[in-house]
C-alpha cells in the first residue's frame, strides 16, 4: 500500500518537474522560480523514496508518521499559495479597473 502511494507521489512529482521545465522554456517563469520549484519537487521525491530521512524531524513535531507530516505541510503550502494568489489577483483587478476608468475618462 505504501509502495503504491510512493509510486503515485513520485509520478506526480515528476510530472510537476516536467510542467515547471515547460513553463521555464516558455519563459513564463524565471530562473529563480524554476530553481525553487525544482528544489520542492526533487526534495519531495527524495523524501518519498527515503521517508526515514524525516522520521526524527516528524517525531520532534509529534507526528506519528512522516506521511502525516507531509500531508500537513502540503496543506499549509496550498493555503499559503491560495492566499498569495488571491492577493495578487485583487491587486491586478484594482490596477485593471483603474486603468480602464482612466482610459474612459481621457479627453472627456
Amino acid at each position, binding site marked *: 500500500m505504501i509502495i503504491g502511494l510512493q509510486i503515485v507521489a513520485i509520478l506526480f512529482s515528476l510530472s510537476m518537474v516536467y510542467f515547471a521545465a515547460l513553463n521555464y522554456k516558455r519563459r513564463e517563469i524565471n530562473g529563480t522560480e524554476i530553481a525553487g520549484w525544482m528544489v520542492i519537487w526533487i526534495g519531495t521525491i527524495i523524501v518519498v523514496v527515503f521517508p526515514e530521512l524525516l522520521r526524527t524531524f516528524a517525531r520532534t513535531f509529534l507526528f506519528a508518521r512522516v506521511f502525516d507530516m507531509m500531508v500537513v505541510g502540503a496543506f499549509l503550502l496550498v493555503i499559503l499559495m491560495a492566499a498569495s494568489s488571491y492577493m495578487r489577483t485583487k491587486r491586478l483587478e484594482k490596477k485593471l*479597473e483603474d486603468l*480602464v476608468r482612466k*482610459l*474612459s*475618462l481621457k479627453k*472627456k
Partner: protein
Amino acid sequence: MKIFIVIPLFNEEKHIVKVLKEVSAYKMPIVVVDDGSTDSSGRKIIDCRSKIVTLLQHKINLGKGAAMKTGAVYAFTHGADAVIFMDSDAQHNPEDLTKFTRKLEGEKYDVIFGSRNLNLGVPLVRYLGNKFVSSFFRIYISDTLCGFRGVTRKAYEKIKWESTGYGVETEMVIRTGKAKLRFCEVPVETIYHSGVKGVTPLDAFGILAQVVKWRLTI
C-alpha cells in the same frame, strides 16, 4: 444644486434609446457608462446623443459597481453636487426622478434609496436578505438591491465603494450606515419586461458572502 444622472450600461441595445429619450426630458446632464457592451448599445447612444448626454466607454466589462464609480467620478469632477443612478434596462420610471431631486435639494438628504417595496410591502426573501444586512450593520433599507438612488458629493466621498459588480448596492447601504449619513427611501415604480438580466441567485449568494467580508473590513 447641479444634479447629474449616471446610467451604467451593459448590452441594453433594446432599451437604452428609450431610457435616454425619457430621461433627457428632465434637462439634467446624463452620463452613460458603457461597461464594455458587445452589442450595438454604444453606437445607438452615439447616434441619438444630444448635448446633455456624455458617453464614457469601458474597454472591457468591469461590472456595474465599476461603471457607477466611473460615472460618479466624471460627474463630480465636472461640477456635480449630486448624482442619481438609474438602470439602463428601462425598469425605472423617469417620472420618479423628481422624488429624488426633491429630497436632495429640498430636504438635504445625503443619500436617497429608491425602494420597490415601500408601497407594496417587502417580499419574504428580500425581507430576510435585508434583515441579514441590518443585523450586521444596524441599518434597515426595505430594498437594498434597487439601483435607483441618489448621492451627494459629500456622501460619495464617505461611501466610495470597492465593489465592481452587483454587490455595489448593498455596499453603499452598509457604508451609508457606517458613515452615519442622513438617508431616506422613496417609493419607485418598477417596470418589468421580458429578457431582464439583473441579479441572479448566484449573484445574491456572492453578495451575502461579501456582507460577511464587509463586516470584518468596513
